[in-house]
């Protein structure tokens, strides 16, 4: 399989497709069951955010290698309204969708590395990585 | 620690009926409800406090804020149904002189 593949997010079904892709790649890379579930959930959250707030965007799953370690990278991009206050969005307890504990802080906890670039009117790009231990 | 807020709009009049207590816990909810309403142009608002058993200074703060907001948009605010204790509160703080406090009490005295 190539080292990266992409899913366009436009309908709720696309979220499922992104999850599936992520789980397959995670399995291929040799992640254990729990980590597979965590990665898939992270993808699910990010794809869902795109679907709800930006209407459309895409999720790219990459296999990455660094100093002998394998890892999985999620890149979620959209041209939506962007996040006005990133600090607020990364705070525990703050949720615009009424969910409990999920959101960006939740995704950050599921993965090993987390990076976000977003500003009002300029869309959002989130990169999250998990390494095989 | 509980408050019930009912808003009814008819003709040009905004009727707000309150029940329960207005204190530090419930005042924010009251403010959240009344403030957006107070920012409309030339609002005519009547707030009925007949069923308000207790109000402390935080409640006062909400009403003053709402009053100022309504006034700045050329509207009118009237408070009715105040118990003796509530009237006293408005009188001591001097608010009874600048706000329309009309106690239409139907024998509801403390």
């Amino acid at each position, binding site marked *: 399989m190539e080292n990266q593949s992409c899913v366009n997010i436009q309908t709720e079904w696309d979220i499922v497709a992104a999850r599936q892709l992520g789980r397959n790649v995670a399995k291929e890379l040799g992640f*254990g*069951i*729990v980590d597979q*579930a*965590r990665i*898939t*959930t992270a993808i699910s959250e990010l794809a869902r955010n795109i679907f709800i707030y930006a209407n459309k965007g895409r999720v790219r799953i990459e296999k990455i290698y660094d100093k002998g370690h394998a890892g999985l990278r999620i890149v979620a991009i959209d041209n939506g309204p962007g996040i006005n206050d990133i600090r607020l969005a990364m705070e*525990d*307890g703050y949720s615009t969708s009424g969910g*409990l*504990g*999920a959101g960006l*802080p*939740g995704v950050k*906890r599921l993965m090993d590395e987390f990076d976000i670039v977003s500003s009002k009117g300029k869309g959002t790009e989130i990169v999250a990585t998990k390494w095989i231990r | 620690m509980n408050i019930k807020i009912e808003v009814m709009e008819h003709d040009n009049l905004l009727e707000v009926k309150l029940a329960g207590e207005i204190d*530090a816990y419930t005042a924010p909810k009251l*403010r959240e409800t009344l403030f957006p309403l107070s920012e409309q142009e030339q609002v005519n608002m009547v707030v009925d406090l007949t069923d308000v058993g*207790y109000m*402390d*200074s*935080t409640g*006062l*703060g*909400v009403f*003053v*804020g709402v009053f*100022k907001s309504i006034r700045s948009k050329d509207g009118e605010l009237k408070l009715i149904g105040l118990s003796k*204790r509530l009237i006293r509160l408005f009188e*001591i*703080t*001097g*608010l009874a*002189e*600048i706000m329309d406090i009309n106690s239409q009490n139907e024998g509801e005295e403390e």
Partner: protein
Amino acid sequence: MPFREVMEAKYRDILTKYIKEQSESTLYIGQKFSRKSIENQVTPEEIISLHKMILQEIYPDMPEYVVHSFDILLEIMLGYGFAYREHQSLRNQQKELRSEIEIAANVQQTLLETKIPSVEGLDIGAISVPARLMNGDYYNFVEDENDCISIAIADVIGKGIPAALCMSMIKYAMDSIPANRNEPSMLLENLNRVVEQNVDPSMFITMFYGMYDYARHVFSYASAGHEPGFYYDGKKREFSEIYAKGLMLGIDKKTKYRQYEKNIHPGDMIILLSDGVTECRTDEGFVEKETLLNYIRKYIHCSAQEIVNNIFKDLEKLQDFQLRDDFTLIIIKRRV
């Protein structure tokens, strides 16, 4: 040995034991295991994965449907893991906030502290207790060179931290008003303009300001919407309300305040308070004004400080030791 390394062995042990015999003692060991895992940040999904793995080991012929059921359970429990971790994080934040508030409350105490003046012929007592950590009531005594003591008592509408921050601002405003402008009505007018300008539009302040000229024993005062205090006539042994009309500070910058004067005779008392005193509530309803005055009568022969301390204790007990609002009480007795 780190918990995670022994975790698997421990859980295998507990699971096998319990399947063999459903004893209460195994359940108890399970509970201890649970506490240990939580302490070590083991997530719900990890427990389920462990459970499934061990079960498959013990029962290699475990039906497919059981295996699948665990997989979906794991995914669902991930959500609970989210919530749990957020909860932990919020709890830690709350702990931090609380200690910050305690520090702030201590700083406030230090900054706003005021000494009770010691003046010949007068006995002054004062007490101020916050309902929460920070005090929204404020009182201040100032002695000047003209044989006058000024007394200010104020209450910021609203409670907690915002109110207390407001108080600090008032104290500094008061400290910087020059002595020749400290006539009660003038002071309130000046302060009103400062407050209107600087304070958040949702905050309001009630204040009573008085000046006691202890050469002539005349008490002049003005009030900005503050709870009226009481005057005790030593000869007639009667209480009357110290009535002074005025709008709260911060509402209208053009507000004017009326000044009143009262002659104070030996044996007379001036009682100033915040609404935390008059708004005392018990299960039966509000503590009436008469009750408060009766308490004062009860302790009338004590020193001013003893009177305020005792009244506080009595009213605190009446309210089941739960203050609803910041409580401030000041008593000035003219000695006989």
